[in-house]
């Protein structure tokens, strides 16, 4: 289990992390999302023992990570900024890793290099950006880590590769309850693989939950009534968002879907539609409740999924 207690990190006068408390159990694929400067990379570097905390502690299986070879030998870290030895090939890097990590598995390395169709004797400097990232992933996975950390690794990776890597991570998680932390700018990159998500903003976690819960906790209901009505009709329901346009109302509701729908049906609407929300939409509403705007915190990348007035 990875545990951080009141984790604080400062760079000169700037506080990057402001007391992070997190608990990540084994076998979990934990996603951490946040904009640039939110502190994701800093967090990962603290968990992997690159940085020393300025306050609080980082523990893996109860032991502090910093300068702790026993713990660190079970970790593998793929940073956002990849590092390779000058003019090294994958094989040379593998030799470096093999001499450092006790659990390095050459068979796995060969197998992965083959699966990704990368030539292990070619200098990595000649690889494309995507291939370099794949090389780094191969190195990390070949160490057979119990804990894997991917810093914005998936951002911009092509779908085939994503599928491959996702499969590999899932395999390790299923096999030996390996744990993975994946960070990203974008929710979309994480939502299909993570089972937990945390939203990091300006050095603090503002939202943290199981993905399952997030996806099922909120839902959208579209209702229409023949008679005129207003919001007060739905007093008994936990409404996050209410929008009415004539005789049609759109409600974002938190709660047990079946019960709530049942309740609403008893109001005898002429139209009742239940729609699941995308994770982005869920986030938007949850964050609004906490006083943040999705755009400010995570920003938009592609087409918006905002509620369109009907």
């Amino acid at each position, binding site marked *: 289990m990875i545990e951080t207690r009141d984790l604080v990190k400062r760079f000169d006068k700037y506080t990057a992390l402001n007391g992070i408390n997190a608990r990540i159990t084994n076998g979990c694929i934990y996603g951490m999302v946040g904009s640039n400067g939110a502190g994701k990379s800093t967090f990962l570097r603290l968990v992997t023992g*690159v940085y020393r905390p300025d306050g609080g502690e980082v523990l893996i299986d109860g032991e502090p990570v910093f300068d702790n070879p026993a713990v660190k030998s079970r970790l593998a870290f793929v940073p956002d900024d990849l590092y390779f030895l000058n003019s090294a090939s994958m094989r040379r890097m593998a030799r470096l890793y093999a001499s*450092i990590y006790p659990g390095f598995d050459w068979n796995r390395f060969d197998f992965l290099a083959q699966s990704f169709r990368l030539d292990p004797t070619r200098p990595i400097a000649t690889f494309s950006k995507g291939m370099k990232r794949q090389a780094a992933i191969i190195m990390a996975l070949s160490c057979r880590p119990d804990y894997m950390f991917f810093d914005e690794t998936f951002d911009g990776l092509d779908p085939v590769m994503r599928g491959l890597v996702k499969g590999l991570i899932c395999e390790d998680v299923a096999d030996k309850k390996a744990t993975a932390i994946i960070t990203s700018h974008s929710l979309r990159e994480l939502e299909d693989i993570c089972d937990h998500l945390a939203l990091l903003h300006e050095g603090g976690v503002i939202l943290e939950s199981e993905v399952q819960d997030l996806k099922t906790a909120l839902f959208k209901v579209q209702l229409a009534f023949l008679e005129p009505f207003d919001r007060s009709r739905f007093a008994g329901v936990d409404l996050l968002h209410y929008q009415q346009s004539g005789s049609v109302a759109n409600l974002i509701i938190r709660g047990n879907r079946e019960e709530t729908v049942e309740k609403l049906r008893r109001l005898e609407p002429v139209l009742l539609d239940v729609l699941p929300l995308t994770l982005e939409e869920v986030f938007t509403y949850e964050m609004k409740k906490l006083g943040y705007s999705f755009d400010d915190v995570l920003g938009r990348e592609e087409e918006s999924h905002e509620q369109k007035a009907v």
Partner: protein
Amino acid sequence: MNKKRFDKKLYAEGLRQLRVLGIVFLGISALVAVLNSVGSWISLLSIGQEELKGTLPVMVSASDMMPFIQLSFLLFAPILSLKMFHFLTDRKSSDFYHSIPQTRACVFLSFFAAIVSWLLMIVLGQAAAAALSRIVFPGFFRFSAAELLRSCLSAAAAGFYTAAAAAIACSITGTAFSNVIVTGLLIFAPRLILSAIVGSVSSACYVMVPEKLSFFFNNDYNLVVRMLSNFLSQRGTTAFSWGPVLYTAVLGALFVLAALLFYRKRRSEAAGFAAPNALLGAVYRLTIAFIICLIPISLIFGSIVKGTKLDVMDRFEIFVLYLIAVIAFYLYELIMTRKLAMLKKATLSLLLLPLLNVLAIVLMVTAYRSTIRFRPAADEIRAISVYDNTDTAYFLGQSEENYFEAQAEKLLITEPAAVKAAADGLAQTLDELDEINQGHYRGDRYSLTIGYKTQTGKTVYREVRVSEAQYDTILKGMRALSEYKEIYTKLPDDSATLSLALYAGKMDAAARSRLYEALRRDAAAMDFDSWIGILRGEIFSIDTLHVTKTENGTTSSFNVPITPELPETFRVYGQELQTDNAKQIEELLASVKRVESVRLSAAVPMDTYMVSASLQGSVFSAGSGEALQFQQTYQIGSSWYPNEETAHALLDILEKSKDNDLTGGRIYLLLGASTELWGVEAYNEYGYWEQILVAVDTDLTPEEFAQQFLWGKKR
């Protein structure tokens, strides 16, 4: 938790990463050594065979064999270190090496071990290449493997030190440029400052003897600084001694420890920043500025202790230098950031600079004052030791310590009169200090370096100018010691540490050893005063034996004249000369005899066997302080110019020289002769040799003999 301090695999990785640089450096060093060897072999070949015989095999020192070994530790070692720890200058690589599952201590030590390993390989590889490339020319070179190894040890210690300094720099700062600057500062700044200060004080204070200061102040103990200054001033390398090696190695070890601590404290995020914290930035600035301040400090100090006022030029110089120091202080900000705010931040630490200046001046003045305060009365001194600066022997321009003086220095003189003279001499010198500071050195003074052993057992050294009377008293006190006599009469006999050379004569090494043995016998048997007289006085000699003793890293030497006053020596000298020349003398005899007989034969054609002889040399008798010198060319053959007397005389001399009997004879001939012989059988045969020594038994005085010999019986 099992904390490993060293990881074999990481060490192997370190070796691998340094491989390219290591091989290049090793290659360069080995190549230089080999080329040097080949070069000296070629230059030896170009000397004539005959001349060569007397010198082969040539003794080469370690510094001859590895002329640029300084590069190993001045350049190669720190570069290896900078390369190894280069990963700390870039965020990506720094993060990587901080994420691996080895403790920081382990990473540092494993990598540093790799650096040291390559350093050793470069140094030893160089030595091996040098040795092998000399052995390949059998008989040409002689060297001491032990000395070679000792030189390697020195270089390794120095390299250890510089590599460790570079490691500290890398652990502290985060950019390649600042790494280099800090490395330079760490290696040189402390010693530079210290020696500048010590130098200022000792040059202002005549009586101070800087060489005798404790090792901390002695520049020679820091191998790097010493070797660099030797290299720059083209001085011959000082020989090996354990003290500096240990000192430098210990310093290196301290540096390694410091580097380790800094590395463990280091934050990976410091990568890419020149001064990761304000304190260190202030330290660099102050160090550089302070170094510039050394000159004005020295000037101000000088004026304080000598009581002179600074003239306008001096004041101007001081002002300008302080200005430069302040600019240097702000240099980084001025060049890099150009922000007023940064300048303001730096100013706070600028206040320390005048403080340091004042501190330095106060320290120096105190040191000066306490030095001149030492003015013991005769009864406060237990014993003195003396090194006579007026009697240093010079040989071929090299100044080495005089062996006898060096040995004599170890003696303790307790004779009250001598002690008193020494005390008086010091007091006198101190009184005359003002004059000396002005540059007025009195001509009737003898310069001695005296060690005063106080009642506490501590010995204080002072450079003293004594009057003639004091000098004689002190010398008498010294001569009274039986050990003193022994120094002179018991010449050293450990041949391993001795090296012998003759100024004029040519003899191989074994012959020289025999000569030296004869000398030892003479010295032991002789009357002490006569012996001293021979050594010190201007005595007639036909050659000089230069003896060098190298022991424990120090070299000392002495010269002994080859003179009939040293009977054994003289005899062996002549004997060895003749033995050496025996073959040539025989040949010459044969040719001259042949000419004789041919000449006497009536039927000799005109164009055969014309022999001309050229003679130079001296005629002298034992005990005479002079010799008659001459140089003549004679034709002693052919039908046209018969010179029967000269031919007979030459034959006579040659026969006598075969005898090698120099014990008899009241007249000696020291000849250098050459002949030319041409004709049908021997065309342009040229035989030349030097130094035939012959004893002639005759009643004639040298002048009479010379006349007869030189100008024939006719006159």
